[in-house]
């Protein structure tokens, strides 16, 4: 059960560079953690619950979704359902990462927690085995560390602010979602999906339980997926980059 570390090895230079890249990504992601901590407290979660979310859920978009639904008055459990739907993409990341990492048993169980956007992006372009594992662990552990530290800091800062509306924190949640979504809006199919999803959700808001419109908008993804045939990727770093490689068997 030896875990690759930063000590010199037969290939010190690449490994050191991979680890440094991972740490850089981890620090950059920490900024999201500060916003998450502050917004989660503003949404009505206490500091402990906020930290538990970052530690246990540990996938940013799902966490923002959960607190977003709760902030707009939805039932916490429909927030959790939205979080799970958003978390499905991590399962697809896992499909790509499994063969690259080649871990089994307890190691795979431990590694699973680190399967997120960032660690996937830093792993899929590396060669299977040591390189992929180093990229995965360095990025995953760095993000885990900085994301949780930043969440605690943001939660404590958010708690001392008082009424979140005074600081426009309710407006910040929508902006956070938009920033997460932004890189994908270059793609035409994604644009159509986004517009339809907003429309469906807003039409349902007056007539359904709070929290349901967002889940219903997920059906837009199913419908658009059924009617489009799209060979190219979506421009987001991640599993799509390798989609064509994966289909080479005839």
């Amino acid at each position, binding site marked *: 059960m030896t875990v690759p570390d930063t000590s010199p090895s037969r290939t010190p230079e690449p490994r050191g560079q991979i680890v440094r890249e991972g740490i850089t990504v981890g620090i950059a992601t920490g900024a999201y953690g500060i916003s998450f901590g502050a917004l989660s407290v503003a949404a009505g*979660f206490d500091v402990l619950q906020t930290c538990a979310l970052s530690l246990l859920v540990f996938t940013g978009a799902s966490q923002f979704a959960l607190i977003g639904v709760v902030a707009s008055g939805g039932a916490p459990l429909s927030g959790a359902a939205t979080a799970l739907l958003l978390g499905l*993409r991590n399962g697809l990341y896992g499909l790509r990462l499994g063969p690259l990492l080649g871990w089994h048993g307890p190691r795979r169980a431990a590694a*699973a927690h680190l399967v997120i956007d960032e660690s996937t992006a830093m792993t899929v372009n590396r060669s299977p085995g040591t390189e992929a594992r180093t990229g995965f662990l360095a990025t995953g552990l760095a993000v885990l560390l900085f994301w949780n530290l930043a969440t605690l800091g943001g939660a404590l800062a958010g708690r001392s602010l008082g009424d979140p509306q005074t600081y*426009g924190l309710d*407006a910040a949640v929508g902006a956070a979602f938009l920033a997460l979504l932004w890189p994908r809006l270059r793609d035409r199919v994604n644009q159509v*999906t986004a517009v339809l*999803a907003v429309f469906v959700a*807003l039409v349902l808001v007056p007539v359904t339980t709070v929290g349901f419109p967002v889940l219903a908008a997920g059906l837009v993804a199913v419908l658009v997926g059924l009617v489009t045939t799209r060979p190219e990727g979506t421009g987001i770093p991640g599993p799509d980059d390798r989609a064509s490689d994966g289909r080479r068997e005839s």
Partner: protein
Amino acid sequence: MWTAVLVAGVGCYLIKLAGLSVPPRVLEQPLVERIADLLPVALLSALIGVQVLTTGHELTIDARLAGLAAAVVALLLRAPFIVVVAVAAGTAAVLRLLA
């Protein structure tokens, strides 16, 4: 609240573990991939709409929409995540202060 935290935590972990454990070809169908790929786009878009344009069961337009517009400008200027969020919050806060 705690129930939601734990459900989301355990569920998201199991999804990750399932992905790592399943033989790749079982789920690697173009349709499944495409839908799973579009799902975050649809959900995040809907969340933006609900978050910015509704209060309870009503559609409303207020300072939040101005905050979102400011966020768009910040994104077009390639501002980092935390700046985008701060610009949106600041815009809404200033507008409410003036109102």
